[in-house]
């Protein structure tokens, strides 16, 4: 270890390895997702079609799952581990446990990935072309669901790892405030535990047994509602680490300090309590859910804008602080004083700018009756390419240019290529997402291989469908080029030699520190309890009503596509294990219950 150097890898060499592994897994998923992205962009817009239209949906499933599950979550477990160890200044409690959850996640996503990619090979009797939402009665191979379960359990254990660190630290520092990065990790983790309950129930109680043939049918509306119980808060699971970077890294690279630590805490508390009871806003146009429930979901969703709007102020004010310390002046002239040539800064700032636009289309999506206009159209695709596809992805790529040297001990391969990469992403996404939004307003559907119909055409008041297609394809090509530059930098850095000139492992200081924050903000139990109550309030009645109407297992509907032969073996294995587990659980209950009653 170099004496002069104070990088993450120098202070936490063992943890740096895990973080590095998580990053590389994330980048591998990003590469796969990117390849599938350009294939579908060119296919959909009819510029270059070389796959069978039916395979488009396998491509789309892979693009979605690899990017929003593997890329984002592997990256965030990396930076969360960094944040915990750095801000508590202590090693993880047991590095073997840390490796264990990483490996569980890796094995899980590999199994799901195999199930998806097998859809390309006709001779393999396995497929999972069910898209990221896996709505029943569309059915995937059981391996897909099993993989997802293992992956999610891996993230649960990761959360436990972070909590263990905090508990141990708290025991040694009983009177100290939770350091802000740790606070952010813990609140996000709690939100994630709550959110994943929905998908866990959907998969373990319904979809997995159904795909194994243990139950005949499922209630499509019920599993769909349980999916969105998880499906909306999952977007905050992607977004919170990006927010964390904007709060604790962006002020530093701007040359300033975080404007307000207390408000940052308020924001994360609001996300903890409001993220989950909102999922029904994805189901505004679902039959079988009363309008009143939809209205409640809308109110919650609208108030969820508050933490994001507060974030906009705090983050911009922190940047302004940096700019003024660097000599910036004027009402808007200070913007020129920001370090725009630094790819870490430029990437995050551009990502934030895109998020401001995404905020607007999100406000439209949150609106209940206006949803008739945009629901399931290309507009929605435009929206989430600005949020997860830019606010999150571009922030992650930008901070990679800071993190990669920290966890490898090697200097970044090229800062100019990095700067070009983040700008190219911004430009590419501007073309693509703008055209997607406009296309959606014409009624062009999302998730459609060839949205060119025989009987009619979409009518554009301004421009034309051809022009929109051209913008989407151009954007897709620019984004692909941007990815190529990103990977060149990642690989170039990995091949670099050891560098002695790395910045210290630090995050931003604060103007208004935790001492200004009321103590109650750190009361995680209280906020979790409120979050649970709100979830119960928002979801009990809709779920009961859905079960009451359609039954727990729903109507008589066949799975689609019809079940496959290779399922038989898995069925046997799971049944066997399940019986054993039930028996032992039964025994446990028999021994415990009398004790409790007594």
């Amino acid at each position, binding site marked *: 270890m170099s004496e002069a150097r104070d990088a993450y890898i120098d202070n936490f060499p063992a943890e740096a390895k895990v973080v590095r592994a998580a990053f590389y897994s994330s980048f591998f998923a990003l590469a796969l997702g990117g390849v599938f992205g350009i294939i579908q962009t060119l296919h959909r817009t009819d510029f270059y079609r070389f796959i069978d239209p039916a395979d488009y949906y396998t491509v789309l499933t892979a693009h979605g799952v690899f990017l929003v599950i593997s890329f984002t979550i592997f990256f965030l477990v990396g930076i969360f581990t960094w944040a915990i160890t750095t801000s508590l200044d202590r090693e993880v409690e047991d590095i073997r446990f840390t490796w264990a959850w990483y490996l569980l996640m890796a094995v899980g996503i590999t199994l799901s990935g195999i199930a998806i990619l097998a859809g390309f090979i006709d001779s393999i009797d396995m497929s999972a072309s069910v898209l990221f939402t896996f709505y029943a009665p569309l059915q995937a191979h059981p391996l897909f669901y099993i993989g997802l379960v293992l992956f999610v359990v891996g993230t649960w254990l990761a959360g436990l790892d972070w909590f263990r660190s905090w508990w141990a630290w708290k025991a040694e520092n009983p009177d100290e405030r939770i350091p802000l990065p740790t606070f952010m990790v813990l609140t996000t983790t709690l939100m994630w535990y709550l959110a994943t309950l929905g998908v866990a129930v959907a998969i373990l109680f319904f979809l997995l047994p159904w795909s194994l043939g243990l139950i005949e049918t499922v209630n499509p509306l019920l599993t769909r509602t349980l999916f969105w119980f998880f499906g909306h808060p999952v977007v905050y699971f992607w977004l919170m680490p990006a927010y964390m970077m904007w709060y604790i890294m962006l002020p530093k690279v701007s040359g300033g300090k975080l404007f307000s630590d207390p408000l940052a805490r308020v924001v994360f508390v609001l996300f903890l309590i409001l993220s989950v009871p909102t999922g029904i806003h994805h189901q505004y146009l679902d039959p079988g859910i009363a309008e009143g429930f939809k209205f409640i979901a809308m109110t919650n969703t609208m108030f969820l804008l508050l933490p994001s709007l507060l974030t906009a102020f705090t983050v911009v004010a922190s940047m302004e602080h940096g700019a003024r310390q660097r000599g910036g002046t004027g009402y808007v002239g200070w913007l020129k004083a920001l370090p725009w040539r630094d790819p870490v800064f430029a990437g995050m700032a551009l990502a934030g700018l895109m998020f401001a636009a995404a905020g607007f289309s999100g406000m439209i999506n949150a609106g209940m009756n206006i949803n008739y206009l945009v629901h399931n159209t290309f507009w929605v695709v435009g929206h989430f390419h600005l949020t997860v596809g830019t606010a999150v992805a571009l922030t992650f790529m930008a901070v990679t240019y800071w993190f990669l040297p920290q966890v490898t001990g090697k200097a970044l391969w090229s800062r100019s290529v990095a700067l070009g990469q983040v700008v190219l992403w911004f430009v590419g996404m501007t073309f693509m997402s703008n055209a997607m939004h406009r296309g959606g307003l014409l009624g062009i559907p999302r998730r459609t291989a060839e949205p060119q119909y025989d009987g009619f055409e979409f009518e554009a008041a301004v421009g034309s469908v051809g022009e929109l297609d051209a913008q989407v394809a151009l954007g897709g090509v620019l984004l692909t080029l941007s990815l190529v530059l990103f990977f060149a930098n990642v690989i170039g850095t990995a091949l670099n030699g050891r560098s002695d000139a790395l910045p210290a492992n630090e995050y931003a200081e604060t103007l208004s520190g935790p001492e200004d924050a009321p103590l109650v903000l750190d009361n995680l139990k209280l906020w979790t309890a409120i979050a649970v109550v709100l979830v119960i309030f928002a979801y009990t009645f809709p779920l009961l009503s859905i079960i009451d*109407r359609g039954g727990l297992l729903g109507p008589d509907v066949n799975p689609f596509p019809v079940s496959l032969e290779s399922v038989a073996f898995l069925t046997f294995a799971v049944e066997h294990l399940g019986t054993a587990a039930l028996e032992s659980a039964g025994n446990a209950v028999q021994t415990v219950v009398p004790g409790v009653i007594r």
Partner: protein
Amino acid sequence: MNIHTYEKVWLIAALVLIVGFIATITYGSVALGITMVGDQEETIEPSELNDDERFGEPRVEQVGENEYEAYVIAQTFTFYPDPIEVPADSEVTFYVTSRDVIHSFSVAGTNINTMVIPGEVSKMTVEFDEPDEYGVVCNEYCGDFHHTMEGLLHVVPEDEFDMTELSVEADDEIELGDEATFDVAVENAALDDLETTVTLEIGNETFEETITVAGGETHETTFEVDSSELGEGDHDWTVTVDDYEESGTLTVVEDLEDEDETDDGDDEDGDDDSDGDTDGGEDDE
């Protein structure tokens, strides 16, 4: 807690924005009457749609003056009925359900858009003011050929729209001297009685009959035409009811049994004629 004045200003502005958004949506619901697809409809068994009163025969039905109901089934990878035809200046309630997986019923370029979930019925009431032609797409992935799932919605001008259906059964060929029969059935799926005239034109002759078809009923009329009036040869005929037309050709031959021979000897046409005249008649029926 120490919050900067500017940030307090922004906090209030943000809350105003949020409340304003909710107020706009509420205004749309309350003042403009925009209603969400909801849980008004009972659930339905997707496997028993064929026996269902509404979905057994997907169709448009009149339920009141200017009020119609459309029962639509979405299934991989079509909509039934297709096209859906409704009149302008009407109020149409769509009931849409799925036979298999989750689909959507989304009329391109309009705010008519709903998820279609097996077991559930989506109900949407829509007012059509102007005649137009719309495409219908499924915007939820439903399988390998999802992108081919499309339909049409025709809003036809009010005066061109009716729910009348005309069918004619007529002889193709008869023997000279026989009566040609035209069985005309006029179905009126609308609510009101339909008063109209059935017209048969054949050769130079025109037959007319004024009928009244009760709402939801079918009226049958038979025209009988004496073939000797028409004479031998091919006679084009047309049955007209309002804007509906059915047409065909009636061939009057001298003798049905001799048909093949007649074809053989074109030259002897004249002779055959006179032969058949006396021969055929009643026997052949």
